[in-house]
């Protein structure tokens, strides 16, 4: 599903955020990405979604080399990936329903289908009764769950999450992780950046550990 091969990322005017990173994530696999603050976790996820381009090396998603993907192909790449952001990235002037519906609207689904799938996704994160609210009327944890619903509503084969439980209490965090595991069981590949080591240990999936931009554990066995 994902393959990094000798990937380097240097931001203009900064040191190397990623150094010689190589790993594979199989189709339908689930893994955690950990490491200290500033280790390069978010950077790695940004390379997968073509928000940033690698300075050197190659990033493959499925059969596609996205290190040099054409600009007009990027939207279609992103439609195949569900992304959950550290800071939710919700539209404050639209209801929860409209926020979750966004990927389906973008993909051009029919109105009835949108309605059905959005409600199913909201139900899964336990926010069906808040569908008419606006994001600012929700607590931080509720906003996070709206973001998760939006990421899964399009049934993408790959799910990326950047600290999805950062703002959730422990029991809710576990619930959300279970949700990811559930998606994983039906064949979705999942990669979650997190620093909740406790929880990760508990769940027992593969761990990719970054330190100072280098993959120090869980990468390709070379």
């Amino acid at each position, binding site marked *: 599903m994902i393959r990094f091969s000798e990937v380097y990322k240097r931001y203009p005017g900064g040191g190397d955020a990623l150094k010689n990173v190589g790993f594979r994530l199989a189709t339908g696999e689930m893994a955690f990405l950990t490491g200290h603050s500033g280790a390069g976790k978010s950077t790695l996820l940004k390379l997968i979604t073509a928000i940033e381009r690698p300075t050197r090396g190659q990033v493959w998603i499925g059969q596609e080399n996205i290190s040099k993907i054409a600009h*007009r192909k990027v939207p279609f790449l992103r439609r195949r990936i569900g*992304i959950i952001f550290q800071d939710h*990235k919700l*539209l404050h002037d639209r209801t929860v329903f409209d926020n979750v519906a966004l990927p389906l609207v*973008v993909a*051009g689904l029919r109105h009835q289908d949108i309605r059905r799938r959005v409600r199913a996704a909201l139900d899964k994160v336990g926010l069906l009764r808040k569908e008419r609210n606006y994001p600012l009327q929700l607590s931080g944890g509720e906003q996070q769950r709206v973001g998760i619903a939006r990421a899964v509503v399009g049934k993408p084969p790959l799910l990326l999450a950047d600290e999805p439980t950062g703002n959730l209490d422990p029991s809710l965090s576990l619930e959300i992780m279970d949700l990811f595991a559930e998606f994983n069981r039906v064949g979705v590949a999942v990669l979650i950046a997190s620093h909740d080591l406790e929880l990760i240990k508990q769940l027992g999936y593969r761990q990719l550990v970054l330190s100072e931009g280098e993959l120090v554990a869980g990468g390709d066995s070379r």
Partner: protein
Amino acid sequence: MRPWLIRHLQVFFYSLGQLWRSPWGTLMSVAVIAISLVLPTALYLALEVVDDLSGQWHSGAEISLFLEPEVSDQAAINLAKKINQRPQVASVDYISATAALEEFRQKSGFGVALDLLDKNPLPGLLRVLPKDNQLSSIQAKAWLLEFSALPEVDQAEYDYAWVQRLQAMVQIGQRLGLIFSILLGGGVVLIIGNTIRLAIFSRRQEIEINKLIGATNGFIRRPFLYSGMQQGALGGLFALAMIYAALSLLAPAVVRLAGTYQSEFTLQIVGWIELLLLPLLGGALGWAGAWLAVGRHLREIEPG
């Protein structure tokens, strides 16, 4: 084909709804656009009116043929008919010596003085109006030579001063028209472009999120284009209303003025059908302005 149409209609009504939800902002943008459309239109109408009036006044650019005193009315009328057959002549008027004196009296305000005359000192007169409104001075001189050679004609004259004045006025009008058109045409484009530009910035986050979720540039561009078009069209409608109001205010005064020139000119001449083009024009300009602004700024906004 149908889902495609539905999606466009959705965006159309969505952006119309956005405009409706921020009525003050919409009103401001629309008013600004309307004002910038009103001004060139007013200029265009004014030029049309001037053109029309000057058509009625062109009689000044005529050639006067003073006939010999012994030429009879009948001979004069025959001559007039002969001249009228020339291809470049629009019309020929015969003013007999008696009629000339009468016109003289009225035009000059020297009515009393003329009563003191023993006999009519004026000759008969043919007024030749050329088809080409602005006879070049070379042409005019050729005509003068030719006409004064006619046996019935004592002398031929041409009102140079009036022609010069007219030409100078037309020149000023054209330059003014050029300057105003540039200013106002640029104004409309700038205003709509600026409005959309700022709208893009105030919806920066929305654009970023849409890009992250896999929206194509076309998808993101669409609501802005519709919004620009709708604002432009609304501006055009407002402009139409303003011009109608302005014409209603002006009409009585213009009719009074025209009356002093014995003219039956009224403002009804204004092309109502052309005015109905205003909303269409506004919509097209709005679309164009949005397209420019979106094209420039959409690329800048990338999720980071």
